[in-house]
Structure formats: C-alpha cells, structure tokens
C-alpha cells in the first residue's frame, strides 16, 4: 500500500488550474499531499460553515420580518466600570482574547513542525487558557443578560422577542465549539508535554501514532472558531 501511495505522490504535480483539473480528475485521492486528518478536518469545517451560515441566514430572516424594534446591542452589551457605560466593551475584550489565542495557536503549529516540544506546549497551553477566559466571559455575559436584563429565548424587555432566541442559539453554539476546543487544547498540551507526538505514541481513542501534524489539524479547528466569531461580531453585535 505504502509503495503505491508514494509512487503516485512522487509524480510531478502541476500548479494552478491545470493542477486542480488533474488532481480532481486523477481518479485517485483528490487532495494530493494533504494528510488524512487535515482533509477530514476541512470537510468537517465546511459542513460546520453551513450550520453557522444557516443560523446567520435565519437570524437575518427573523430580524428583517419583525415589526418590533430590535434591541440595540451597543446598549445591551454596554458595561460600566464605575463611570459611564462603555458600549459593547465586554464583546470587544472577548474579540481581542480570541484573536490573541488565534495568534498563539498559529505559532504553536509552526513550533510544532520545528519539533520544539516545550515552546509548542506553552503556546498550546496559553491558547487553552485564553479560550477558557473567553468561555468564562461568555458565562458572565449570559448570566448578566438572563438575571439582570431579563432576556429569555421567548422574549425580553428591550424589544423584538427574536433577539433572545438568536442570541442564545448563535452564541451558545459558538461557545460550545470554543469549549470543545479548549478541552482538546488541554489534551494536546498534555500529549506534547509527555512527548507523545515525538514518540508517535498511539492515541487512546484513534490508536493512530502521534504526529505534529495533529497540531495543525487542531489549529484549523481553533482558527475556524475565531473565524465564526468574526462573523457573529459583525452581524450580531455591530449590525
């Protein structure tokens, strides 16, 4: 099996559109030189794009069709630190936390490929902590909205009832993605620190040998979570 695969992949691959036609028309695997895990992660992410895309399209539909005024996110999510309330400040801080974590993740992937075990570990660990910070701030945001502002999925005192359903659905699903990501970041920090990727120790679930490519696959997931937040921030919080 290995000789066949290697022989196919050692063929010269054409660049550009001709290469695209050749790859897809090769009657073999289409994604040449792409590791198995990475192709699978991309397939998952494309399907996840559709889930979030449908959420945001439904949000557009309910917001356009309601007769009641839409609550102003700038005011709903304002926070006051002693003085006058600063509009949307919590969401802005959450955005910066998530972008910082995306940066540390990108560096972790890079240092992983350099086989720099400890730098990779600390970067992954920092990414996990930043992700946990984000989830913590979201818990604060949710409890403030539920307990102090009286927002419910079926109504709120500020205006259109759909505001609550969209808010809990979209940010809840995103927060769930972040939480899963944080769990895997901690798992992979542990695996890196224990040298599982250097020694190709089989994983407890997949039984596949450890490899630093797994950090890139994890990175794809984490960057996707950040990417979804970019859209939620623009369409839900700023629009």
């Amino acid at each position: 099996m290995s000789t066949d695969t290697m022989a196919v992949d050692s063929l010269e691959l054409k660049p550009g559109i001709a290469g695209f036609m050749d790859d897809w028309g090769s009657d073999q695997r289409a994604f040449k030189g792409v590791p198995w895990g990475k192709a699978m992660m991309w397939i998952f992410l494309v399907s996840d794009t559709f889930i979030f895309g449908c959420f945001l399209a439904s949000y557009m539909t309910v917001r356009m069709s309601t007769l009641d005024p839409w609550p102003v996110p700038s005011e709903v999510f304002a926070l006051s630190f002693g003085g006058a309330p600063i509009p949307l400040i919590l969401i802005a801080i959450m955005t910066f936390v998530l972008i910082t974590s995306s940066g540390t993740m990108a560096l972790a992937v890079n240092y992983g490929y350099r086989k720099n075990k400890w730098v990779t570990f600390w970067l992954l660990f920092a990414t996990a902590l930043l992700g946990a910070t984000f989830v913590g701030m979201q818990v604060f945001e949710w409890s403030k909205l539920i307990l102090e502002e009286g927002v419910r999925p079926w109504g709120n005192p500020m205006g259109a009832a759909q505001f609550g359903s969209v808010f809990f659905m979209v940010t809840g699903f995103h927060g769930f993605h972040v939480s899963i990501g944080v769990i895997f970041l901690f798992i992979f920090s542990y695996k890196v620190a224990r040298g599982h990727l250097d020694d190709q120790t089989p994983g407890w679930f997949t039984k596949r040998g450890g490899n630093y490519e797994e950090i890139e696959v994890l990175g794809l997931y984490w960057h996707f979570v950040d990417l979804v937040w970019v859209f939620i921030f623009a369409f839900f919080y700023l629009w």
Partner: protein
Amino acid sequence: MDHAADGHQPVVREEEAIQHPLGVYFKIWILLFVLSAMSYAVDYYQVQGYLRWFLILMFMVLKAGLIIAVFMHMVWERLALVYFILVPPVLLLTFVAIGSLEADWTFFQRGVHFLKELIIAAPLSPHH
C-alpha cells in the same frame, strides 16, 4: 519514523511548514488586532447608515480573509483543496436571497394583519 505506513508524507510537509517564516504570523496577528480595533471603533463612535454597514462588512471580510489565508495556511494549499473549501459556502448566498424574500413578505403580511387588529382594537383600548 515510518510515516509511509499510513500514507502520510510528513517529510515534505514539515519542510514546507518550516519555511513559513514567523514574521508573517506576527504581521497578520498585528493586522487582526488593528482591524478588530477599527471595527469596534465603528460602534464606539456610532457611525450610522450605509457607511456603518460598509465598514463592518469590509473589516469582517479582511479579518476573515487573513485568518483563512495565513493562519489556516490556505495560501500554501493546492487549488484542489482551496476550491473544495471556498466554493460550496457560496451556496449560502442562495439561502440569504430566499430568506430576505421571505422576510420581506412576512414583514408585509404582519404589517397588514397587525395594523388591521390595531384599527379594530383602537376604540376599545386607547392605550394600545
């Protein structure tokens, strides 16, 4: 290190990956911070109307593009993978088009229906 057994070619890939200089990541990272700050500034300074929507969308597209292109390594991928990822989500625009048509119709119907109710209810409850 027998990577060939599971059909991977990590030798090639690792060399490619190492060739991404760290500087690129730091530059993109700073750009993402700047773009986020600017999109927050749109709200902070209460820019309104079409200019607000234009700025929000522009900063959103730039941020998303930078994350996908560099952090998710898409500029270094072959077109076979790039097109597989970028083309299908375009179909979401169909949902957006259908959704906005339906929303306009619902809005119109609600307007007609609720307005009628208001007119009938008006003499009975002046606070309505």
